[in-house]
C-alpha cells in the first residue's frame, strides 16, 4: 500500500535510466569543475611567470572550455533532476489519489476536503523535488568535495587538513538545530491542516455565516489559527536560517587559517604564489558543493517530515479490492439475500438489527417506514457503501463483503436522494456509470459507447428530452463549427415562420427591418445585426466612440440617457430595499450584482438636468437603456415616440456602418446564420416573446416544435449539441429534478441487474415521477431487481412486496393489499399521512 512506502522507495523506483545518465554527467562535471583550478595554477606559474603568450592562450582556452562544459552540464543535470523528480511526484499524486478515493466512506466522515487538497497539492511537492535530487546532488557534490580535497592534499597536506578542520564541528552542530526545525515543520504541517479544514468549513457553511452575520466570529476563529501559524512558521524558518548561518560561519573560518599559515609560508619563500591562489580558489570552490549538500540535507528533512505526515494520515485500508483478482467481474442474476444482518456503530448503537430479507431476481420491493428507521442504511449495506457488522448479506450466492467494487458496480446501480453531478457535459455525466464499468483502467479508451439513439431513447424515458433539446436550442455556435448544420437551419426559417406564425404567432416575434422589436434590446433594435468587432458587443456598446458619435449625430443620445434614468430611478424605487436576487430583476434591465452602484447613481441623478449628469454616470445610464427590452422589462414603460426614432436610427446606423466600417457588423439577413444568437433564435429568425404559454398550450408548442425539427432532420443534431451542455460545478446549472433524472438515467444506461432507488425521485413532480415509474414498469420489469426506498406511499401499491421498517428492523412484509388489510404500521402510515398536509 502506498502509504506504507518510505520516501526512499520512490528514489529506488524512479526512472533508473535517467538516474544512470545523470550520474555519468556528474562524473564529467566533477572533472570540469576541477580543471579550471589546475589551469589557474598553470596560468600563473607557467604562462605569466615565463611570459609565454602561446601557453597563456592555450590554458585560457582550456579554462573557458571547462567552464562552458560545466555550465552546459549543470543545466542538463537540472533538467534531468526535474524530470525524475516531477515524474515521481506525478506517480505519487496519482497513486495516493487513487488510494484516498478508495478509502471507506467512514474515513471521509472524519476528514475534510481541505485536508485532502493540501496533502495532494502542497505537501507532496517537496517529496518530488527530493526524489529528483536524491542521487545526483549528494553523489555529485561529495565527489566534487573529494576531488578538491584530494587536489588540496596533493598541493599541501598540512594546509589541506587545517582548512577543513572546521567541518567536523559543523557536522556535529547542524543536525541538532535541524531537529528543532523539523519539530516546527511537523507542527506547521498539522497547523496547515487545521487551517485548510477551517477554510473548507467556512466556504461550505457560507450560508450559515451570512445568515448569522457571524463574520467577526469566523474572523476571530481564523485569526487565532493564523497567529498560531505565524509563530510556528517563524520558529521553523528561524531554525532553518540558524542552520545555514552556522554552516556559513564555519565555512568562513577556513580562509582565516589559510591566510595565516599560507601567508607565513609564502613570506618565508616555502610556498609559491600560484599555489596560494590555487589553494584559495580551491577552498572557495569547496564552498559551493558544501552549501548544496547543506541545502539538500534540509530539503531531505523537510520532504521526509511532510511525506511521513501525509502518509501517516491516509494510512488506512481501502474497504474493498477495486477489481476482482484474476477473473472478470461477476454476472449476477439479481437475487438479494440478507440473513440476520446487523450494523452497529461505535460498538453499541445498532442501526440495523438482525435483518432478514429474501429478494428474488426481478422482484420489486419497496422499503417504507419513518425516517431514521434504517431504510437507507440497509440499501447502502446491500450496495457495499457501508459494511455490515454481523450476519450474512448475499447477492446471488456471493457474500457482499467478499466482492470487489467492480463486481458490485457491474451488477448494481444505486441512485441516492441527493445525487452528485460532476462538472462536465451532460453526456459525460450520463455515461459516468457506464464508463466506470466498461473502462478497465485509465489507459484504455472506453469501448463502444452507447449509441446516440440509445442515449436519446433514455432521455425520453426519464423525461429529460425536452430539457436537453432546449439546452441545444439555446447554444451559441461558433462560426467555425457545424457548417453544414448551419446551412440547414437557414433553409428552414421561412418554413418555420409560415408554420408557427399563424397558430403560435403571439409567442414569437420575427425579425423585420421595418418593425420595432419589442422583445429585443434597444441596442439590437438599432444594430439589427451581430457585432464582428468587440467595440459593438452589448457590453461595450455604451462606451464605443463610434456609437457615441453616431448617437450624437442623430440626436438620440439624450433620449436614451433619459430612458436610462427612468429605468434606474423607476426600478430602484421598487427594488431599492430588496436583496440582489435574480428573482426581483426579471422585469428590469438592471443587473442584480450592480444593485448598490445603481442605488448610488439613482440618488445622484434624480431630478438633475441631463446636461449636469456626470459623463461616467451617463455611460451607465446609456448601458441600461441599451439593454432594455420593452416587452420584457415591464417595470418601466417605453415612450411610443422613441420606437419611431429608433426605427429611423436603425436606417442611419446601417448607412453609417456601410460607409465607414463595413466589416464591423453583420446585419441580420434571412439567408445568413447569426452567430451572436442561439440556435433557437436562428431557426425562428426572431425572438420568443415574454408571453408565457401555459400547460396544454406549452405542450402543443413543444410537440409542434419537435415534430418540425424531426421533419427537417435537425432534431438529433440539436439534441446532441444539447448533450454537450456544461453543467457547472456540482451541476449548479441544473435544477434538482434534472439532477435526479440524470442520476437515474446514468445508472440505467449501464443496465444493472439490481437497481436501488433511495428516494431517487423526491425532487420530481407527480407527472415526472409517474414517467419514471412507467419506464421501470415497461422496460425493466422482470429484468432488474428493484429495491426502492419510498417517501410517498401512493407510489408503492404496484410493488411486489413492501417491507416496513422501524428502528432498524423489518416489522412487516407483504403485498400492499395484505398489509393494508392486516392493519399494522403500513396502514397507520398511509392513514396517518393522509390527514396531514405534505
Amino acid at each position: 500500500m502506498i502509504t506504507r512506502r518510505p520516501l526512499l522507495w520512490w528514489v529506488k523506483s524512479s526512472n533508473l535510466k535517467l538516474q544512470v545518465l545523470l550520474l555519468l554527467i556528474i562524473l564529467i562535471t566533477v572533472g570540469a569543475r576541477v580543471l579550471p583550478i589546475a589551469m589557474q595554477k598553470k596560468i600563473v606559474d607557467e604562462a605569466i611567470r615565463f611570459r609565454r603568450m602561446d601557453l597563456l592562450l592555450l590554458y585560457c582556452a582550456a579554462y573557458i572550455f571547462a567552464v562552458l562544459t560545466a555550465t552546459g552540464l549543470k543545466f542538463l543535470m537540472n533538467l534531468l533532476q526535474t524530470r525524475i523528480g516531477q515524474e515521481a511526484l506525478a506517480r505519487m499524486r496519482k497513486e495516493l489519489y487513487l488510494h484516498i478515493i478508495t478509502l471507506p466512506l467512514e474515513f471521509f466522515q472524519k476528514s475534510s476536503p481541505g485536508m485532502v487538497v493540501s496533502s495532494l497539492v502542497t505537501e507532496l511537492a517537496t517529496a518530488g523535488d527530493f526524489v529528483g535530487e536524491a542521487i545526483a546532488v549528494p553523489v555529485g557534490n561529495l565527489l566534487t568535495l573529494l576531488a578538491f580535497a584530494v587536489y588540496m592534499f596533493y598541493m599541501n597536506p598540512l594546509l589541506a587538513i587545517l582548512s577543513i578542520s572546521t567541518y567536523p564541528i559543523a557536522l556535529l552542530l547542524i543536525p541538532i538545530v535541524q531537529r528543532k526545525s523539523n519539530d516546527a515543520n511537523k507542527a506547521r504541517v498539522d497547523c496547515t491542516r487545521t487551517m485548510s479544514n477551517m477554510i473548507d468549513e467556512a466556504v461550505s457553511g457560507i450560508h450559515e455565516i451570512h445568515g448569522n452575520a457571524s463574520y467577526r466570529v469566523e474572523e476571530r476563529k481564523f485569526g487565532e489559527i493564523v497567529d498560531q501559524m505565524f509563530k510556528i512558521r517563524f520558529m521553523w524558518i528561524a531554525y532553518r536560517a540558524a542552520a545555514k548561518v552556522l554552516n556559513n560561519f564555519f565555512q568562513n573560518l577556513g580562509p582565516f587559517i589559510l591566510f595565516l599559515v599560507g601567508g607565513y609560508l609564502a613570506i618565508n619563500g616555502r610556498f609559491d604564489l600560484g599555489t596560494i591562489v590555487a589553494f584559495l580558489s580551491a577552498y572557495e570552490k569547496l564552498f559551493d558543493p558544501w552549501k548544496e549538500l547543506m541545502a539538500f540535507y534540509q530539503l531531505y528533512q523537510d520532504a521526509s517530515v511532510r511525506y511521513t505526515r501525509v502518509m501517516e494520515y491516509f494510512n488506512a485500508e481501502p474497504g474493498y479490492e477495486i477489481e476482482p483478482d484474476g477473473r472478470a467481474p461477476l454476472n449476477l442474476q439479481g437475487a438479494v439475500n440478507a440473513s440476520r444482518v446487523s450494523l452497529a456503530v461505535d460498538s453499541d448503537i445498532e442501526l440495523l438489527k438482525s435483518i432478514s430479507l429474501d429478494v428474488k431476481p426481478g422482484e420489486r420491493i419497496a422499503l417504507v417506514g419513518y425516517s431514521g428507521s434504517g431504510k437507507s442504511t440497509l440499501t447502502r449495506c446491500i450496495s457495499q457503501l457501508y459494511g455490515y457488522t454481523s450476519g450474512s448479506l448475499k447477492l446471488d450466492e456471493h457474500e457482499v463483503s467478499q466482492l470487489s467494487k467492480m463486481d458490485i458496480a457491474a451488477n448494481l446501480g444505486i441512485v441516492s436522494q441527493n445525487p452528485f453531478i460532476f462538472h462536465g457535459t451532460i453526456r459525460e455525466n450520463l455515461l459516468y456509470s457506464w464508463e466506470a464499468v466498461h473502462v478497465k483502467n485509465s489507459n484504455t479508451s472506453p469501448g463502444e459507447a452507447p449509441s446516440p439513439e440509445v442515449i436519446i431513447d433514455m432521455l425520453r424515458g426519464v423525461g429529460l428530452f425536452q430539457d436537453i433539446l432546449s439546452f441545444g436550442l439555446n447554444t451559441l455556435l461558433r462560426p467555425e463549427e457545424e457548417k453544414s448544420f448551419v446551412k440547414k437551419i437557414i433553409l428552414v426559417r421561412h418554413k418555420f415562420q409560415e408554420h408557427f406564425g399563424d397558430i403560435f404567432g403571439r409567442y414569437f416575434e420575427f425579425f423585420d427591418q421595418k418593425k420595432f422589436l419589442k422583445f429585443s434590446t434597444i441596442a439590437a433594435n438599432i444594430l439589427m445585426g451581430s457585432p464582428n468587432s468587440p467595440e459593438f458587443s452589448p457590453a461595450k456598446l455604451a462606451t464605443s466612440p463610434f456609437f457615441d458619435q453616431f448617437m450624437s449625430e442623430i440626436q438620440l443620445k439624450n433620449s436614451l440617457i433619459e430612458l436610462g434614468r427612468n429605468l434606474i430611478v423607476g426600478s430602484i424605487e421598487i427594488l431599492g430595499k430588496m436583496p440582489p436576487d435574480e428573482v426581483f430583476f426579471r422585469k428590469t434591465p438592471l443587473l442584480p450584482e450592480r444593485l448598490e452602484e445603481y442605488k448610488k447613481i439613482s440618488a445622484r441623478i434624480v431630478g438633475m438636468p441631463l446636461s449636469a449628469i456626470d459623463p461616467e454616470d451617463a455611460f451607465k445610464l446609456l448601458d441600461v437603456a441599451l439593454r432594455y427590452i420593452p416587452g420584457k422589462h415591464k417595470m418601466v414603460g417605453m415612450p411610443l415616440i422613441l420606437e419611431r426614432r429608433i426605427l429611423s436610427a436603425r436606417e442611419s446606423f446601417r448607412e453609417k456602418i456601410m460607409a465607414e466600417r463595413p466589416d464591423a457588423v453583420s446585419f441580420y439577413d434571412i439567408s445568413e446564420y447569426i452567430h451572436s444568437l442561439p440556435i433557437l433564435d436562428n431557426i425562428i429568425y426572431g425572438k420568443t416573446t415574454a408571453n408565457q404559454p401555459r400547460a396544454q398550450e406549452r405542450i402543443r408548442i413543444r410537440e409542434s416544435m419537435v415534430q418540425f425539427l424531426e421533419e427537417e432532420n435537425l432534431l438529433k443534431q440539436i439534441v446532441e449539441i444539447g448533450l454537450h451542455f456544461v453543467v457547472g460545478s456540482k451541476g449548479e446549472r441544473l435544477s434538482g429534478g434534472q439532477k435526479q433524472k440524470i442520476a437515474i438515467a446514468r445508472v440505467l444506461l449501464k443496465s444493472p441487474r439490481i437497481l436501488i432507488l433511495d428516494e431517487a425521485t423526491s425532487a420530481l413532480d407527480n407527472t415526472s415521477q409517474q414517467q419514471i415509474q412507467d419506464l421501470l414498469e415497461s422496460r425493466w420489469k422482470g429484468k432488474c431487481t428493484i429495491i426502492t426506498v419510498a417517501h410517498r406511499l401512493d407510489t408503492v401499491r404496484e410493488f411486489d412486496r413492501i417491507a416496513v421498517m422501524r428502528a432498524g428492523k423489518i416489522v412487516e412484509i407483504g403485498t400492499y393489499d395484505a398489509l393494508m388489510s392486516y392493519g399494522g404500521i403500513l396502514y397507520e402510515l398511509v392513514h396517518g399521512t393522509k390527514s396531514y398536509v405534505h
Partner: protein
Amino acid sequence: MNSSTEQNLTCIEYRTAIDLLMRIPLFSVIPIEAVKVVACLGQTENFAAGEVVFQQGEIDDHAYCILEGEAELLLRTEEGEQKIRGFGQGDFIGGLSLLSNMERLFSLRAQTDLCCIVFSADGFHKTLRQFPEAAAEILREIALQVFRWEYGLLHGDGKLCAKCTTKVGATLL
C-alpha cells in the same frame, strides 16, 4: 384571441397589479413597498377556455389573480366531478399556496379565455424576508379569515349537517 384582448394584455403594467393586490385582504395589510415588489414579480398568463389552471392532487405553489374571464373550481370525488363555485374578474385564488407547499384539494378550470396575474411562492418568500413586519400582519390576517370562515360555518344561514359538526374546530388549531 382577438385584437382587443391582445392590446389589453400587453398594456397590463405593474400599476394594475398593484391596484388589484391592494384590494385583496391578504395584501392590503402589508406595507406598500412590499406590495410593489410582489406586484412586479407577478407574471401575466393566459389560459384558453377549458384549460386547467391547476389540478387537484398536484403540488402547485402559485397564487392567481383573475384580470379577465371566468374560471370554475372543481372537486373530483369517487362519485365524479362537481363544481364548487365560479370565479371572475378581480378574484384572488390560492394565497395560502404562497406560504406553504400544499397539495391542491380542488382543480381550477378556465370557463372562458382567462387572463391571470400569477404569483410564485419563491418570489413571495424572498420579498417577505425583507419585510418581517409584513409577515406578522399576514399571519394575523389569515387567523382572522379562518375565524370568520368557521364563524360563518357555525352561525351562518345554512344548517350544519350532523356529520360535519364532528369535524369543525379549525380555529382551535
